[in-house]
């Protein structure tokens, strides 16, 4: 934003003449994860009051397990949205990656860890395809991933011949579904893996030159280029990182559903975008945090579980998600108009 104030007052930086609304605006501008955090806390408190079962450890641990797949995907989606892009294919890419893992392991007898690595490589490959199309052929990410969404869907269905594959209980790939007990709270390895993903990518975004370049490229690609950043490389790297999260999310998905289903991916695309948007990351790029997307994914799940436990018609869960998305984008637009 380049709003200019009158020269006389330009050097006075002390925000002394700001209304309360402007102060809130400033606070949210500096802390993009603050608004989702407030929404999450309020939602948890409200649902806790409405239904007594909501705050029980079992309910909460189930809630977290239910959001682990979307949560992991949202990491990759955040990285792409920070570059002012979007990935509409990410859910199908995950399904494809999980099919590769499961079918190699079950149909072809490839050892679990190797099948996992090949599956993750397939996930990375989907990211490379998207990234190359965006950076080398200069196509808009929306169009590229709309196309690859259909392509990945078709490849997944053809590869699986439309069939669901279930894994035997002792498969290595189901490890992410196993529960570890911390006191009365059960948590799956998949949830921990998701948290590791958040910690790793969050650290890289905040504390490495790569992360800094990603934010710069997302905000103003020309300025980043003039500062000596090779923005095409940065963009490509974002899609590769998304590919890695696709592979990890695919593993978590295996543990959750006990196998691989070629028809499972449709909702995950939009759910990951929903989590990112509710998490306060700007669709215009350059502003947001991965931790916000974790909060965003949690908010959606809290609404779904909370409304379900309160005995509300499931259709209202969808309605609530829609309202949350629109509110989140409206808040983002308001924050983006922040003035000095």
């Amino acid at each position, binding site marked *: *934003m*380049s709003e*200019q*104030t*009158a*020269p*006389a007052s*330009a*050097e006075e*930086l*002390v925000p002394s003449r700001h209304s309360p609304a402007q102060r809130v605006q400033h606070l949210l*501008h*500096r802390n993009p994860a603050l608004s989702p955090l407030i929404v999450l806390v309020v939602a948890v408190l409200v649902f806790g009051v409405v239904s007594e079962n909501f705050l029980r450890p079992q309910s909460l641990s189930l809630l977290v397990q239910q959001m682990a797949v979307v949560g992991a995907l949202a990491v990759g989606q955040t990285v792409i949205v920070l570059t002012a892009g979007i990935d509409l294919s990410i859910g199908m890419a995950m399904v494809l990656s999980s099919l590769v893992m499961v079918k190699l392991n079950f149909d072809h007898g490839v050892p679990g860890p190797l099948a996992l690595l090949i599956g993750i490589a397939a996930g990375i490959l989907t990211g490379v395809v998207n990234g190359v199309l965006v950076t080398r052929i200069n196509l808009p990410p929306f169009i590229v991933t709309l196309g690859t969404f259909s392509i990945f869907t078709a490849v997944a269905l053809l590869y699986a011949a439309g069939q669901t594959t279930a894994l035997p209980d002792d498969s290595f790939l189901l490890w992410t579904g196993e529960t570890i007990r911390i006191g009365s709270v059960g948590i799956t390895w998949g949830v921990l893996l998701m948290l590791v993903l958040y910690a790793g990518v969050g650290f890289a975004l905040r*504390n*490495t*030159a790569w992360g*800094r*370049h990603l*934010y*710069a490229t*997302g*905000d*103003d690609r*020309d*300025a*980043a280029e*003039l*500062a*000596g*950043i090779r923005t095409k490389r940065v963009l490509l790297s974002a899609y590769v990182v998304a590919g890695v999260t696709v592979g990890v999310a695919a593993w978590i998905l295996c543990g959750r559903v006990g196998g691989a289903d070629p028809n499972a991916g449709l909702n995950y695309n939009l759910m990951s975008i929903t989590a990112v948007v509710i998490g306060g990351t700007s669709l215009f790029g*350059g*502003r947001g945090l991965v931790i916000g997307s974790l909060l965003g994914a949690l908010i959606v799940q809290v609404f779904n579980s909370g409304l379900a436990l309160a005995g509300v018609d499931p259709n209202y869960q969808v309605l609530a998600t829609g309202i949350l998305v629109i509110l989140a984008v409206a808040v983002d637009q308001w924050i983006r108009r*922040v003035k*000095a």
Partner: protein
Amino acid sequence: MTDPLLELRSVNKSFGPVQVLHDVDFRVYPGQVTALVGDNGAGKSTLVKTIAGIYRADSGDFAFDGKPVTIHSPKEAADLGIEVVYQDLALCDNLDIVQNMFLGREATSGGVVLDELTMEERARTTLASLSVRTVKSVRQSVASLSGGQRQTVAIAKAVLWNSRVVLLDEPTAALGVAQTRQVLDLVRRLADAGLGVVLISHNMVDVLEVSDRITALYLGRVAADLPAKESNLSQIVELITAGRSGDIGIPAATAAESA
């Protein structure tokens, strides 16, 4: 007079059939502000971008510190110590002052993790060495700065790298009176600190006030290269608009040829 820090001789540059620079000679002296003036399309931006390594000259010689050099990329220019402050400033609004000053050249510890303390310290030292007191905190977001402060940050970014030649493209174009004052003072201080400063400006009053030498371009040719003290407003305006003034400037026949 001291030897020039940067010297260009007979530089030519064409874009397809259009020749934008004709045998341009250009010198930048240490400790001096060299103003580069000329009408729109005279070739100022092309000359700057050629020096910055964004464009490659078709022919001509470059010398830096008296030694012949080639500049084929922005990185080669930066390695020599040539920095450009672009008109649109090239700052990222979502980053703070330190992050912008080090953008693309971040300091790391162990090669991976950003060394925020070192960067913050160096940013603060650089701003202080430029006597910049208008910025409250180096951790302030650039989006919250005024036009003059943004210009200051962009200039500080350019001098952070022990640069020796700084090219400023229209640094006061979008500024109010008070902010223009600050930026011109800063431009003068850069030269006083021994840097070779190139100032591109359309404001002849600013040019006459702050610069030591004036190089006027007219349709891609150097119309004149003269000390600012021996010049005046009407003379420069004539050089810019007609390519000649009295007995200095491009002969009418040559000027017509490039028109």
